[in-house]
């Protein structure tokens, strides 16, 4: 697994979504559980039907807040020395379990809906925006 990983999921209500987080902190199964909990607690994404770890970040590069989220990870350095690394690892384990360091990329459908409404000049009676 890479240092920074993409997690893709499908929400029953809002459709396609993704998050970026640290890889190598948990085993795959545990990572998915932690991310799912984090998404529920922090971003109120509560109806996840399926969730998976992506092969690369490229898979979610079309998500609305991809750049904003990726930047947060690029700006942080991962220590390379063993002592510092294990300290960092424990810190990240704790923070991810509390829902931190899991950045939600927004819902694609919501973004496309916004673009569509914008193209139409934001008609006020467009109820689909409120979904």
């Amino acid at each position, binding site marked *: 697994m890479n240092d920074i990983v993409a997690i893709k999921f499908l929400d029953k209500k809002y459709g396609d979504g993704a998050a970026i987080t640290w890889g190598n902190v948990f085993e795959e199964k545990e990572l998915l559980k932690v991310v799912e909990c984090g998404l529920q607690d922090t971003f109120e994404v509560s109806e996840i039907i399926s969730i998976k770890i992506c092969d690369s970040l490229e898979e979610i590069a079309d998500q609305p807040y991809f*750049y904003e989220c990726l930047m947060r990870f690029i700006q942080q350095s991962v220590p390379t020395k063993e002592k510092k690394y294990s300290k960092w690892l424990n810190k990240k384990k704790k923070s991810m379990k509390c829902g931190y360091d899991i950045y939600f990329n*927004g819902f694609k459908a919501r*973004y496309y809906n916004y673009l569509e409404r914008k193209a139409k000049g934001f008609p006020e009676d467009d109820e689909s925006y409120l979904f």
Partner: protein
Amino acid sequence: MDDIVGIKFIDKKMGEGAVITWGRLFDSVDADELLDVVKKKLPNFGVHNLDSIELCYSLMEISDQPYFHEQLKYFIKRPIFFDNKYEKWVRKKREALKQGKEILFTGFKNEYMQQIERNNNEILS
């Protein structure tokens, strides 16, 4: 509003363009003051006939602009420290923006496409 934002505009003559800059400095929701500050800087980029200007949904909306990644790099290199120095940082950045600094232009799409076309034609001829 996000910490780093995309602002898209249309110039009557040059067409579509965008800038990347710091968000949330003047207000965390209302973009009016930020847009006013950006507007003042636009003539420096060759925007003399501004038709419209708006805050983008996310950076994704301007990710197809010619120099998006080059300009984004500038902001990635400058992390924001959300500690007790944050307020001081905000004041400093507000001043910088008012002076027209840290508003980075991502180029005109039309101009760029024309340049690409010219380059392709040169290669083919």
